[in-house]
């Protein structure tokens, strides 16, 4: 009798353990995420609604004062506009150039491997090193670009490539595009290589043009790769700090900041950590909305499939 009673309880325990097993497996990741993601997010939200002294001492809750101060500053709105231009320009152009490059690299030609290695080079180099190199290339007094152009006889005196804030920012966008292209190229290339060549053969037999094949075979089939690279790029580029900080630090007159460099300056140069946290929260909300839209679209896509 006692054995009969014991058997089901052991089985029950085993079942319970089995049910709990996935959660035990996930526990390390969950703890890691809590420690590295959730706690900092909560801390930043708390700091954004706190009065913080210049010496970085939290003085107490001050509601939305930091947000009001941030929004009242014209620099913030210029920075927000810059952030949108920066993200759209870098992600847009790098996707376009990366796609074309991937198409080229998908062809069979001599030295393809060497070209592929060269394309990945900017991606394999640290962003700060890239930014420093570009800063020296475009320097008007001793930069490589001016020296090269004058040796080729294309200019007779050195050109100031960064005379205005707009010119500075355009160069920074270019550097952003240059370092982002390899990532897109290899994402798209992996998508292109998974396309069965028989589709193209069949289309060729039917007399389809290059553009027809591009829009009716290539683009629909690399769409998943393109979506992944675009979404990841939006997040990376939006939050990118090294290029702008290394090249201009947001100057001249704070006109080349993006949200990330602006909040860094607010916190560590101007000693306004509360306002910096508020800018950080605003950036987080913008990205969360973008991610939400992406999730909705991709979930709908899955349902449709």
């Amino acid at each position, binding site marked *: 009798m006692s054995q009969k009673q014991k058997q089901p309880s052991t089985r029950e325990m085993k079942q319970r353990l089995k049910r709990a097993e996935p959660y*035990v497996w996930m*526990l390390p990741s969950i703890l890691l995420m809590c420690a590295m993601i959730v706690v900092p997010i909560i*801390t930043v939200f708390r700091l954004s609604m706190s009065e913080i002294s*210049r*010496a970085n001492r939290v003085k107490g809750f001050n509601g939305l004062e930091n947000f009001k101060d941030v929004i009242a500053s014209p620099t913030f709105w210029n920075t927000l506009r810059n952030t949108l231009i920066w993200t759209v320009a870098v992600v847009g152009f790098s996707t376009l150039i990366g796609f074309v490059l991937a198409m080229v690299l998908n062809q069979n030609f001599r030295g393809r491997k060497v070209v592929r290695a060269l394309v990945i080079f900017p991606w394999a180099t640290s962003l700060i090193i890239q930014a420093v190199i570009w800063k020296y290339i475009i320097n008007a*007094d001793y930069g490589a670009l001016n020296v090269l152009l004058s040796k080729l006889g294309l200019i007779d*005196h050195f050109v100031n490539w960064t005379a205005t804030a707009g010119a500075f920012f355009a160069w920074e966008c270019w550097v952003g595009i240059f370092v982002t292209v390899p990532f897109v190229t290899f994402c798209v290339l992996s998508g292109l290589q998974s396309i069965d060549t028989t589709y193209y053969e069949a289309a060729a037999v039917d007399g389809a043009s290059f553009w027809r094949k591009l829009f009716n075979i290539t683009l629909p089939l690399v769409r998943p790769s393109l979506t992944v690279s675009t979404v990841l790029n939006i997040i990376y580029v939006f939050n990118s700090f090294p290029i702008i900080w290394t090249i201009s630090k947001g100057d001249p007159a704070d006109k080349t900041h993006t949200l990330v460099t602006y909040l860094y300056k607010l916190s*560590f140069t101007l000693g306004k*950590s509360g306002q910096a946290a508020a800018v950080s929260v605003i950036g987080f909300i913008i990205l969360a909305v973008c991610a939400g839209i992406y999730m909705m679209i991709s979930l709908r896509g899955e349902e449709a499939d």
Partner: protein
Amino acid sequence: MKKSLALLLALAMVLALAACSNTTTPSGGGSATPAPQTAAPQGGGEKVTLNVIISQYGNYTQDWWPTFEKDFEDTYSNIDLNVEIVSWNDLYTVVSTRISTNQAPDILNIDTFADYVADDLLVPAEEYTSAELKAKLIPSFWTANELDGTVWALPILASCRALFCNMDLLNEAGITAPPKTWDEVDAACKAVLDTFNGSIVPWGLDISGDEGQAAFAYYTWNNGGGFVDADGNWALNSAENVEAMNYIKSLIDNGYCNANPYTDTRYPLQDAFNAGSQAMMIGACNMMSADSEVNYVVADLPTQTGTPVAMGVCDRLMVFDSSVTASKNADEAARLDAVSKFFDFFYDTNRYSEYMVYEGFLPVTTDSSELLAKSADQFSVGGTGAPGDNEYFANFSSILLSCDFYPSSRAEWIDVKQGVIDAEQRICQGEDAQTVLDALQAQIAG
């Protein structure tokens, strides 16, 4: 079996993660290398711990301090001294993060202190400065650290700024003497530009976020303006300042200076001068590198008033209140006694003179100033090992006494500093100088 083992490993990982978590709860953002964790001695008569952050003044700063640390600990066996060298690039981030997590050093070497005073984080200097030390500090440097009637910090070293001219380049351009007025600067720049067809930068200008406030001081002070008026009130929008800002803009517009003064800090400008590709610049007294072959002269800053005003820069040492320090010494009196011993040891005539020669900065004590003016050559320069230059210390130490300094002991200084940099950049990008400076004055003075 494999599953159980894997489960066990997962649990071990969880426990390891839990064990890794810090016991203190940070209250501020940012991340920096944590301060050395030191066990707090309980009860009297035990070891006192002193954590010190020293700013990195040169490439060899970190080689001098370990010897100091060892000598100090050999002399005072009951004091555990931890000296940490932090670069100026990271200093503000590190200090700010440490303060927010109550991990501040006992002694900090930095440029300003008003923000720390505002939060009651500092110990008044009278509480740890010995009578002997106070007597040998140059009086103007002692009072320069006064705020609301209390001295909050000690000067660690000073430097002064002067006009450096590459005489080979100027002579080739037909200029025989360093320019004394702004008109002469313009003439010299034009001559250099015309002679070298743009391959030599005539004038080095830095209005970057790094030290743009220095340019504001050089040009406004030498035009009769400045940060404050004769009564000590903020006077950022004076007519003299507007004129000085427009003059800076004219240097850029005429192509007389480096192409990117908004982002070129003093360091690439110094490099260019040392390499002989820039004819003139206003720089720190120790900006010439030992291996430079440039034939240069040091001159007064060009002035419009007839009386050149040199600029002095002075950094400080300050002591944090034990409530925010990482050392957590139980006995505050013993800690302040150790701090006092640290300063007496550091400002010892020979040791302090040796450090000044090593870093190339100017002493702020009378005894070291006198010693170095006569026999700096008994000490060696950091990195090269070359003997110190008696003439350098004699000349610059005397200039230092007549220098003007930033009003950096005022609570508004950080806003003023960033404000004038921002104003300079806006004006040089084409905004109206009077309007920009009026707005800054209204923001600062209310």
